[in-house]
Structure formats: C-alpha cells, structure tokens
C-alpha cells in the first residue's frame, strides 16, 4: 500500500516531460525512468530511485529545451517537489518494510510533506520575483556567468553542509 505513493509520483514525473514535448525520444526516456523507478519500488533499492530521478530530470530538461516553451515556475517547482517526494517516499517504504509502524509516522510524514511543499512553492515564487526584479537592469551577456557562479556557489554550500554534518561532535542523550 505504501508503495502506491512513489509509483504514482513516478508516473506523474514520467508524464510531465511527455506533456511538454510529446515526441518519441522523450517518451522512451520517460519509460526508461519509469522502469528504473519500478525496479526501485519493487526491490526497495535506493540507487535505482536516484538514477530514475536523474533520468526524469534529463527528460524534463530535454523536453523544455526542445519545446522552447515559456518559463513555467509553478510547474518546475512541482517537478522538483515530485523528485523529492519520490526519493522520500521510497526511503520511507524501505524503512517501514517488515517493521512495526506507528500510524503517527505516516501522518507526520504526510503533514511535513504538505507543509514543505507549500513553503517551497512560496519560496520559489519569492525567488522568481526577486530574480525578475534583478534581471531587468542586468546586461544579458552576464547571465550565463552569473548562473554558473550561482550553481557553483550552491554546490559549495552543499559541500559545506556535508562537511559540517560529518564533523559535528557526537551528542549523547541526557539520562
């Protein structure tokens, strides 16, 4: 039962690029992603799920690039949330497999997911508004350099997060 949620999310993620650009190569790539997701759901194996998410992402990029459609921020945020939910729901499915599960676990996960989704959509909207305001006075030639610098900055921030998380001293529960 708990595996229906990632299956539904995977189907939606596979369908999104096909809806943007209904061409055979996009559909075939979506099917490949769906196949990986099916393996991940059936075997509760994490790495096919990560690979499926990457394939969906490549498919989505290709669809956007080939279609040359207008920028759809809500759709993109939804797609990103879908990727996150796919990974989280598969992780949860693996975790509760053959375990005594408290119903509060599922309830709290659903509540947290909903809250996080709303917060992300709000943050995306805010970010796009700020970006739009900043983009107007900026010369177009600077944009790719700025994007690359931004991406590098984000990767550097991720690296810092990981390093800090790994280096933090152990914390013991109080008696």
């Amino acid at each position, binding site marked *: 039962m708990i595996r229906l949620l990632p299956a539904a999310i995977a189907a939606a993620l596979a369908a999104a690029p096909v809806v943007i650009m209904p061409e055979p190569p996009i559909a075939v790539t979506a099917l490949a992603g769906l196949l990986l997701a099916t393996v991940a759901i059936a075997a509760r194996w*994490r790495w096919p799920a*990560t690979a499926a998410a990457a394939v969906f992402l490549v498919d989505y990029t290709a669809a956007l690039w080939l279609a040359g459609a207008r920028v759809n*921020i809500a759709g993109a945020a939804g797609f990103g949330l879908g990727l996150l939910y796919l990974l989280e729901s598969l992780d949860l499915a693996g975790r509760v497999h053959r375990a005594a599960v*408290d119903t509060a676990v599922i309830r709290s996960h659903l509540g947290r997911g909903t809250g996080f989704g709303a917060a992300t959509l709000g943050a995306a909207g805010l970010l796009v508004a700020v970006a739009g305001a900043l983009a107007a006075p900026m010369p177009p030639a600077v944009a790719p350099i700025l994007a690359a610098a931004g991406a590098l900055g*984000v990767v550097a921030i991720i690296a810092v997060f990981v390093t800090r998380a790994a280096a933090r001293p152990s*914390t013991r529960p109080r008696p």
Partner: protein
Amino acid sequence: MTARVTPLGLSIMAVAGCALSLAVLSGRPELFVAALPLLLALVPLALRAPALDHRISHEVSRERVFEGERVTISVTVTARAPIPLIELLGPLPAGSAVVSGRHRAVMTVGAGGTARWSYELVFPGRGVHDLGAIAVRRRDRSGVRTWEDRHVDSKPLRVYPTIAPLRSLPRPAYPRASIGDYVSPAFGEGIEPADIRRFAPGDRVRQVNWRASLRLGELYVTQHHRERNADVVLMLDTLAEAGRTPETTLDWSVRAAASLATAYLARKDRVGLINYGGLIHWVKPAGGRTQYERLADALARAGVVFTYVAKDLAVVPPRVLPPRAVVIGITPLLDARFARAALDLAARGFDLVVLDVSPVAATRAALLPSPATDLACRLWTLERRARLAELHRQGIPVLEWQPPEPLELALARARRRRPRLVAAG
C-alpha cells in the same frame, strides 16, 4: 551516538547536483527552480543538531524458558524533545524466531510522549542468550541526518532443554548410605518387607509379625530392606554431533540428560554432569532443586568443541565422579574417543550404562531424500550395529534410542531385557 548523513540525503544531493548542472548546460531557469525543493531539504544539514533527549527501556517477560516457549520483549521510548522518526531494532538471537509482532519498529514520539512496542520470540533450541542490545537510529525531521546508537541493558535469557517424564530408569547397582527411593539388599529401616526372625531384646513391638508369631508359637519380628539413594553421573558426549539445529544428536542428548537428571533428582538421588568434549566441564553431584538449576544451566550451554586431543577422565576429580556411582554415557558414538573413555570407566569398576543416541535419523532429516541417502543410512546403521555389539561384548549395557521416538520407549525396551531397571514411580 554517531551522527551521519543518510543515504536519502546523499540521493537528494546527487539529484540536486544533477539539476543544477543541467540548468547551467541548458540555460533553462526551470531547472534552478526544480532544484530548489531539493536544496531546501538539505538545509537541516547546516543547522545545529537538535538535543537528543530520549530514554529507552526494555523488559523481557521471562528469564528462563524451556525450548519452544515464548518470550515477550517490550520496549518503551520516552522523549522529552520530539522525535520525528526513530527506528529500533530489537534483539533476535540466532536460532530464535519472531512469532508475534516485528522485531523492528519505526515510530514518532511527541515532546513528553511515550511510545511502546513489543514482540514475541520463540526459541526452538536450548541456549543462553542476551536480549539486552537494541540498535537505535534517530532521524531528523527532513530525514537527511541520522544518529545511531546502541541501547545496552543486559537481559540474560536461559533456554532450558525440554524434559520428558520418565518412569523407567537405569537402577544403580550400589546405593549410597543416605535415605532415598532404592530398595537396598541390606536390612534396616524401610517399608519393603524382607524377612522375619525371632524377637530379640531391643526390638520394637510394632515390628512384631503377629501372624507368624501365632502360627509358630513364639514372637517373630519383620525385617525390612533399607531404602537408599544413589550417585548418578551423566556423561555427555560433546566431541561431535550430527544433524541440523535444533534437532542435532547433541540437542537430543541434552534433552535426554535433562530428563534423566530431573527423574533422578525427583527420587532424591545426587546427580552430576560431565561434558566430555574438546573442553571437559563438570557439575559436582548433589541433590535438590538448586542442583537442577546448575545442571540445566550447564546443559543449556553445552556445545561441541572440536579437538584432536583425547581427553583423559583422570582429570575429573573423584568428588565429581564418586566411586560406585552409576555413570550414564549419553552419546551418538560418532567419536571413538568417547567409547574408549566409556571402556576406561567400566574397567575402573564404575556402574556404566551407555545411552546411544542414534545419529542416523538426525542426519537423514538434514539431507535431501534420495536412494543414495537411503543406502548410506542403511550402511551406517549396519556399521553402528557392529560397534554396539562390540560394546555389548565388553560387558557394557547399551540402550539404543532413535530420536524423535520418546526416551521412555528406549528405557522401557531396555527394562524388558535388563532386570536391573526398576520403575521410578
């Protein structure tokens, strides 16, 4: 407590990195937006770790059980700060099986809340286990960071071998001086009439046999047999075993030893134990309920320790192997060293009985049925028969037992052949 990034966190990082790379390559802003939820999910990695304020306690319903009985393990988690997700992996010793519930639990505990979880284990085989360790994995709200720990609170559990009620027991040839249930050839205090003789000064009036006195015209008294107990030493062969746990020849031997010990102790005999194997362990003969606990503990721990060294029974102190004790060797006769030790004991004048636990059925049960298996088992049975006949020729009484038939059946078969055996009840 060890903190680390979860595999989910690593997956999110990989996908986020992929999204950012594709965004740069394609120049589509949607991909930056798509990466945003993934990056936001990673933010807790940079935040300060929440205080781990919880307490875990667990209880085991029983400390001692017999094979096949159930034990309930109850775990309680009390949290002062909220725990978004905690995974607990309860003890599941080798050889045990979960019969009710799950030995792994995933739960959420609110601030000041308590969560409970329990499951039942069954132990088909004997042994001594510690049910004291619980693996704990706590995750943060986003699921990208985890803390792992082990809650250790020693909870030993002893699984004793099952006991079969026995009515027929090998009777000791030499009773001891203490009072017991065996009818001694010597005359004295007792309830079993032995003979009559003329009244002598000092005899009690209640000993007068009035019927004989009236018939013979003078006073006669009844003499009785003394009732004595005996020393019984169970010698367990732990040199080798055959079959699949918990139905190996050693498992059956241990069950037989436990049943014999219980039956003899109920008859007020002193019972001792020698584990004859790679390591020689012993329990000094004694009587009573405490002795049963000692024997059951030793039997629960009995295991095969392989060695090439032939162990000499001379290392066993005389108080463990008292003279005139009845020694019951419980063996599958897989190792010739045990047969040599038995012959040594018989030569030293011990009252020796060998209980032969047939390994053929146990081995056959562990193998796939085939004509080759049948043939091998038949040849093995013939070879063993020749070995038992050799022991018979040496004057050692051998009781053949083929588990899983009841031990009582083997003892009763022998009772029909050997007048030394008496009913215990």
